[in-house]
């Protein structure tokens, strides 16, 4: 009897604790979203706790009046699309090539690649060399360093090695060269792992902040993350500016849609996080599989 009671108690405790932690994980997102679509004056008084009040979407129209936001969105989108495609392509190819036992110096080059995960020169030496390569204030700096990613190469290689050898052998007997085997045989088979790599790479690109901070002084090359960081620290001047612009137009800015420091900051936050929140439910099932393939290798 007593064990059953403690059992129930443990179960109740587990459910409560996990629910609480889950709440702590989502509430910040939820709370900010409902605050950005509620009347700004009510929101400023701290009355929006559980659900939105006097819903409006003026904030989302207004923030795009801030100069630079649309451009930064384009830069972020550009680096994510271009960077991710190249990283996925390179990871697929290298993962496949490193599984080719007859490659010259295979072991050495694989180590040469993997070992870079465990050391780095440090950010300042990295910055100084990037500068000497003329990669400051250069869009290529967002792309080139990310193409070869050792972790993704390991993921693909492990996956390729788990597929039956006969597939490649059969193609080889039929007279297919290395490239034909890669494109015609392996690439279609590797789709699941490449989806995982694509997700990781895209999230990394979208979230990248440090490279902009170190390398870019040209505001045309600022990413959304970087611009958000700047906004957090100077949102008050931006809200004044947007309000002035609105005052000139025919629509009368009521208190409910008047921009405050907080409304600007929260709205931009949601715009920056939106892509992640939108694709997250879809990619969630991919990465669990992906990380487990990586875990098998250890």
């Amino acid at each position, binding site marked *: 009897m007593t064990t059953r009671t403690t059992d129930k108690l443990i179960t109740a405790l587990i459910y409560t604790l996990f629910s609480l932690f889950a709440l702590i994980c989502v509430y910040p997102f939820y709370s900010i979203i409902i605050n950005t679509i509620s009347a700004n004056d009510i929101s400023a008084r701290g009355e929006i706790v559980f659900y939105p009040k006097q819903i409006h979407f003026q904030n989302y129209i207004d923030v795009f009046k801030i100069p630079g936001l649309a451009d930064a969105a384009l830069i972020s989108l550009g680096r994510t699309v271009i960077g991710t495609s190249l990283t996925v392509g390179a990871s697929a190819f290298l993962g496949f090539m490193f599984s080719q036992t*007859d490659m010259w110096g295979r072991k050495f080059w694989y180590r040469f690649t993997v070992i870079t995960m465990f050391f780095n020169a440090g950010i300042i030496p990295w910055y100084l060399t990037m500068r000497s390569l003329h990669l400051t204030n250069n869009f290529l700096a967002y792309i080139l360093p990310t193409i070869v990613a050792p972790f993704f190469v390991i993921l693909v290689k492990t996956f390729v090695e788990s597929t039956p050898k006969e597939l490649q052998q059969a193609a080889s007997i039929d007279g297919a060269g290395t490239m034909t085997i890669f494109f015609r045989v392996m690439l279609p088979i590797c789709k699941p792992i490449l989806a995982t790599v694509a997700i990781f790479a895209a999230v990394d690109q979208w979230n990248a902040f440090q490279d902009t901070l170190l390398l870019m002084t040209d505001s045309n090359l600022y990413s959304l993350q970087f611009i958000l960081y700047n906004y957090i620290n100077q949102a008050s001047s931006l809200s004044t500016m947007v309000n002035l612009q609105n005052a000139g137009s025919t629509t009368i800015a009521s208190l409910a849609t008047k921009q405050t420091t907080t409304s600007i900051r929260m709205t931009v936050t949601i715009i920056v996080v939106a892509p992640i929140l939108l694709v*997250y439910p879809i990619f969630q099932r991919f990465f669990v599989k992906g990380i487990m393939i990586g875990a098998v290798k250890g």
Partner: protein
Amino acid sequence: MAFRKFLYILPFMVLLGVFAYYPLYGWVYAFYDYTPPIPLSKSEFVGFKWFHSLVENQVKIDQLLQVIKNTFGISGLGLLFSWLPMVFAIFLAEIKSIRFRKFIQTVTTLPNFISWVLVYSLAFSMFSSEGIVNGMLSQFGLIDSPVLLLQKSDNVWLTMWMWTTWKALGWSAILYIAAIMGIDESLYEAARVDGATRMQVIRHVVIPNMLPTYFVLLMLQVASFLNNGLEQYFVFQNAFNKETIQVLDLYVYNLAMGGGSYSVSVAISMLKSLISVILLFSVNGLSKLTRGESIV
């Protein structure tokens, strides 16, 4: 044929050489009196001057010690609670309802996928003087003036650890969840036949099976003891908490990009990288000795 295969990957190896290995050449800046815009070729070679300068007087020693203390404090807290993801996974696996378990896993993994800038922005929206939490508290009449939660200099190590945990806990648990799913079902059955209670099953079946994973991850964490990363501390730093938030990575950044002392910064960076590599080899050797298996 074998060599042609190598030629295929050569361009990628060149990329890796340029972006992962060539920056090591940047370490030479530590041995020159480098002040931009004067190029390195026209700078004076000063040998180990900058390394000596790190400890040349009490003020500099104190400053460096404070930075090292912060690094050790924050990394130490991480090590102290390194078992949390394992416990998280163990108790998550105890949840019988698959839908609820999946839901918890999905929701708690989400914060791992947002950037530190966004975490800071969430923190700011929630906890700044005009943030949601202060708004709620004054709305309910609990406080008169806003509580400045982000500008306090005390407990910075703890709050930084809490943000790291909030962001990474659910994600770090995935490896352990994989380990639990790999446990042989017959072990559970045997334990049940022997009349083991739930807690006894966890203690004698689940935990022993997770320890290898825990050990590997712990070793990797030890190896990166000095590498807290820059982003988290950079975005959370302000005039009030600078003293206690400055970890080595942030200090190196502030010295160079804030103060223009590139050479000193590179010198510290270099020491840090060298110690990290030594740490990695040490834990790897330790792993080989105790488990007969290397981790890298």
